[in-house]
């Protein structure tokens, strides 16, 4: 070749650089795991899994519930994910309907409480934990603004709260969706939409993530955030002037669940992850963030979290929520999307 030294060096350097950056194949199995877990949870979960299975590495793809669901649906014909670990059961039901899940009975499945699993003999998904709605109420800001403490969902529609309530967008946030679906079930469809119409008048904005309303309330940016109980409890523990309120009409809740994506090239590794996901050890991990977990008898009390959490949860019809999810969301968007945060 007729290249001079400098040019040759640059060419070689470039080729080397590209090869380096493209990344070399790893010896062990890599699982692409789609999740809507809180970002804070990803590292400890992967670490606990790797303590048992060091040869399988987890590559997380994380976003809010609605976005992970949309992504999975968009990739239906060319699935990129191997496993879903930590996504709302209502979303997994939608995926099951689309025949996108690989049924598998993980080792130790029998030990889970029956309501935390797909009813089929070989379940398409298994539950991990339940999370439930709550209000985060900033006592300092409420006092400044002269806001009474709400105790019921209905209270939030009172004119005094106008512009002081923040809630998650149900299209992107799993927490937002469980709120909407719970109101439709608690109040009935017509009254449910009527409730949301009136609530909409008081909403300052719809956030993208389900934990943000509570964080905004904790920081005093908004006095009231509709969020989930664990977030309120943990922020209160950090010193936020919050009251975590459980509205009397009943609390919407959803399950976080795990499943194997149909068509994965790493089925063995995916099954090992599922085995881990139902294990007692994993459930202890879930319990650090959730009061109600799938493995009975191990749940520890969480500070600032109600001890009777399970009894506050409404009787949630997941099948109904899942089969109506698309229609509920499009109706919601056409009515209220104007106040949503971007994304």
């Amino acid at each position, binding site marked *: 070749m*007729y290249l*001079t030294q*400098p*040019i040759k060096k*640059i060419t070689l350097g*470039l080729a080397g*650089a*590209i090869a380096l*950056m*493209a*990344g070399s194949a790893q010896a062990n199995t890599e699982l692409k795991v789609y999740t809507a877990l*809180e*970002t*804070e*949870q*990803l*590292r400890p979960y992967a670490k606990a899994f790797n303590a048992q299975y060091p040869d399988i590495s987890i*590559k*997380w*793809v*994380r*976003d809010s519930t*609605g*976005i992970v669901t*949309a*992504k999975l*649906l*968009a990739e239906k014909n*060319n699935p990129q994910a191997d496993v879903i670990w930590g996504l709302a059961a209502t979303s997994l039901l939608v995926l099951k309907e689309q025949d996108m899940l690989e049924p598998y009975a993980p080792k130790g499945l029998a030990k889970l409480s029956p309501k935390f699993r797909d009813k089929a003999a070989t379940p398409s998904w298994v539950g991990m934990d339940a999370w439930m709605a709550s209000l985060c109420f900033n006592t*300092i800001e409420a006092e400044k603004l002269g806001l009474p403490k709400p105790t019921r969902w209905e209270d939030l529609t009172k004119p005094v709260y106008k512009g002081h309530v923040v809630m998650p967008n149900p*299209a*992107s946030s799993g927490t937002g969706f469980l709120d909407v679906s719970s109101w439709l079930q608690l109040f009935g469809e017509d009254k449910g939409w009527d409730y949301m119409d009136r609530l909409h008048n008081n909403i300052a*904005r*719809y956030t*993208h*993530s389900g*934990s*943000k309303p*509570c*964080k*905004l309330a904790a*920081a*005093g*940016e*908004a006095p009231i955030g509709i969020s989930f109980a664990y977030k309120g409890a943990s922020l209160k523990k*950090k*010193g*936020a*002037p919050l009251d975590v309120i459980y509205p009397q009409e009943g609390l919407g809740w959803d399950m976080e669940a795990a499943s194997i994506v149909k068509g994965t090239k790493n089925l063995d590794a995916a099954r090992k992850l599922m085995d881990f996901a139902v294990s007692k050890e994993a459930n202890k991990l879930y319990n650090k963030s959730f009061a109600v977990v799938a493995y009975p008898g191990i749940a520890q009390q969480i500070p600032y979290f109600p001890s009777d959490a399970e009894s506050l949860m409404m009787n949630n019809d997941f099948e109904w929520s899942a089969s109506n999810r698309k229609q509920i969301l499009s109706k919601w968007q056409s009515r209220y*999307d*104007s*106040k*949503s*945060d*971007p*994304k």
Partner: protein
Amino acid sequence: MSGVAADGLQVSGGAQERGTVKADKVRLSRQDYLQRGAVLLAVFFLLVALVLPLGTMLIKSLQNTEGEFVGLANFIGYIRNPALFQSVLNSLQIALISTCVVLSLAFLFAYGLTRTCMPGKKTLRALTLLPLFAPSLLPAISLIYLLGNQGIFKEILMGASVYGPIGIVAGMCFWVFPHVLMIMITALSNSDARLYEAAQVMKASPVRTFFTVTLPSAKYGLISAGFVAFTLVITDFGVPKVIGGDFKVLATDIYKQVVGQQNFQMGAVVSVILLLPAVFSFAADRLVQKKQVAMLSARAVPYVPKPNPVKDNIFLGICLLVVSAILLVIGMAAYASFVSFWPYNMELSLQHYDFESVGSSWGYYFNSLEMAAWVAVIGTCIVFLNAYLVEKGRAFEPVRNLLHLMAMIPMAVPGMVLGLAYIFFFNQPDNPLNFIYATMAILVLNSVVHFYTVCHLTSVTALKQIDGEFESVSASLKIPFYVTFWRVTLPVSLPAVLEISVYLFVNAMTTVSAVVFIYSSDTMLASISVLNMDEAGNTASAAGMGIMILLTCLAVKGLHWLLSQQVLELTQGWRNR
């Protein structure tokens, strides 16, 4: 950060002079083949990294989700959707207001720097550059602490909410200011003292002189600065994402369609719509610049300001005010990143810099460093070599002109549009370059192309200063062109090369818009993590990461300054003879 900066302005249309050094049409030597090969390679690079992705995106905007051709149906659907179309109006409104505010401020500031004898000019000038070193997310986050519901100065807004147009305009003005100021300074420096003498002799009032002499001579600079500001504002994504609340603009719409709803076709449609104002203002800007060149005649005498205590102090006051605002915004973000629990526990702590505890990572910061370093090294090599071929090459004149033209395109392409185009192009399973998808390589490639134009223009300007005789002489002495390049061209242009690499590094560190669609979980970047942490409500940590980016860029800039002192001594001594 979009790649528009003032550097481009000092460059005038060079196409006319190109190709003066023509090879004898005897026989093509190996060198000629080598040069032709290099030119073709350069064209191929820009074709693959820029033109084809953009083309793919245009095609996508005309297809439905199944990939069938539907003509303009998507666009019609977009315009008929009132919620989406509102974004167009909102974007235009924000861009117009921000442009007016920033132009007025930058004009006053530049006037102070160029036309008065106020003290501390160098320091004031240097401080205005600070916004360039942080992602546009940072001023927006800082504004939440300053003017949000718990902000320390929220009374200024008299009950209005900072979330929405007010916040976006304020954030934009901060972020766009240095870009506009650079152009204004250039525009106001090019003035002819003889005109002012004439005005004085004719006893024209200062006001009249201002409107008949000062403004007309800076007219083109003003227009050009207006276009730059408008484009930057309409294409920026960071500010409206953080502080826009429910106020929708085009840039956040693309994000929402693509990331939020996985609706790539609609994302492509919004991209094309976003491309229009950018392309328009770019074309208009080029047109205006050509006129600017002809304005100053060779006989012009540079204007030297005379001391005038009243005027000097007034402008010093204005400039101090602007600089204080800039320092306040940055200082607030830095301070807030140390406050344990805003606003209820104002004790200072380092807890928000424990990025791991909020699901982010210091690893993302190092990813950013790595990416920025690659962009600086690879980008500088590619851009400078290509500029050399354009400016000093001997072969293929039409192809070299094409190369120059292609090098100008990136300036008109908003980062998000380029990023989305990369998804469409590189994520096709049958694309042989598919393997770079979701790697560091695609981020580097994207950033090099995104910031290409300014670097290209800087290189061309530097190369123009070198006499073409060097090439002729070495050709007649039968010295290969690459030896001349290595021994003469490169050393003489070293200051420009250094400048390009720093420009690329800083922009790669701070950019959000170009990379937000194409990062993967392994190549998460610091700037993206600022976005994600803010989205999850971990605002203080987001501010902390933004400050880390700022400090890093400042350090690199400082290093550059030290290094260029050394290099100048070594290689540029001949200039001072």
